[in-house]
């Protein structure tokens, strides 16, 4: 007696996770910062102008080297923000449904 042919069951089940893309945070609002460069050449003029403008002769001084370090620190922060944003954009593009992919 022949064995009956086994029945094949084909079940296709595609599950795609949908990750909602949340809004980005609002952009930073930065305040202006006035910089004074002071040397022996313009010190007296600086004190006079500064006091006239700010009503006080107290100020915070920073050396040229520390100013350079401050600049490099800001450059690092800027790099980090940019790269973080690029990574977020990468993930947003990666999880976008196919029909929403930007066309080249």
């Amino acid at each position: 007696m022949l064995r009956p042919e086994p029945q094949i069951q084909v079940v296709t089940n595609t599950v795609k996770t949908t990750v909602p893309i949340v809004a980005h945070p609002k952009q930073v609002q930065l305040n202006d910062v006035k910089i004074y460069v002071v040397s022996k050449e313009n010190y007296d003029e600086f004190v006079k102008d500064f006091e006239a403008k700010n009503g006080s002769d107290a100020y915070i001084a920073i050396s040229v080297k520390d100013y350079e370090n401050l600049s490099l620190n800001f450059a690092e922060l800027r790099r980090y923000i940019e790269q973080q944003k690029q990574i977020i954009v990468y993930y947003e593009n990666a999880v976008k449904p196919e029909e929403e992919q930007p066309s080249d």
Partner: protein
Amino acid sequence: MFSSIRIALILVVLAGAGGAFMYVKNLQANLETARANVAKMEVALATSEQSLALERSETKRLGELNTQLSSDLQRAEQYGDELRATLNKHNLTHLANKKPGLIQQRMQDATNKLWDDLESITAPNNGVLDAQTGTTDTSSN
């Protein structure tokens, strides 16, 4: 006796024919099942091929995105690299001593530009800032 043998022979023939009939019926049923299985296998194969094609296109797309990301991440290093090069190239202390007014203006401009750049790159609908905007001013901030 002769007729008994004949009857027995007829019964054997009938039983054989019945068995053969059942065998053929079973064979036909198996054939139908096999045909249905082949059809299902073809559908499964087509689905697998579609899945494979989708997987390939996804891998390609993600590879392209990854390449783009690497390039963008590298580009973000440009501003800092330029700034370091500029600071190494110029003696800012000497320049500040000799021409404080000029250096002050350049520092102020560079600082204002940095604030603008930071506001720009954090804008929600704006892409990442083009690293080409990195300034080469001697007083880059």
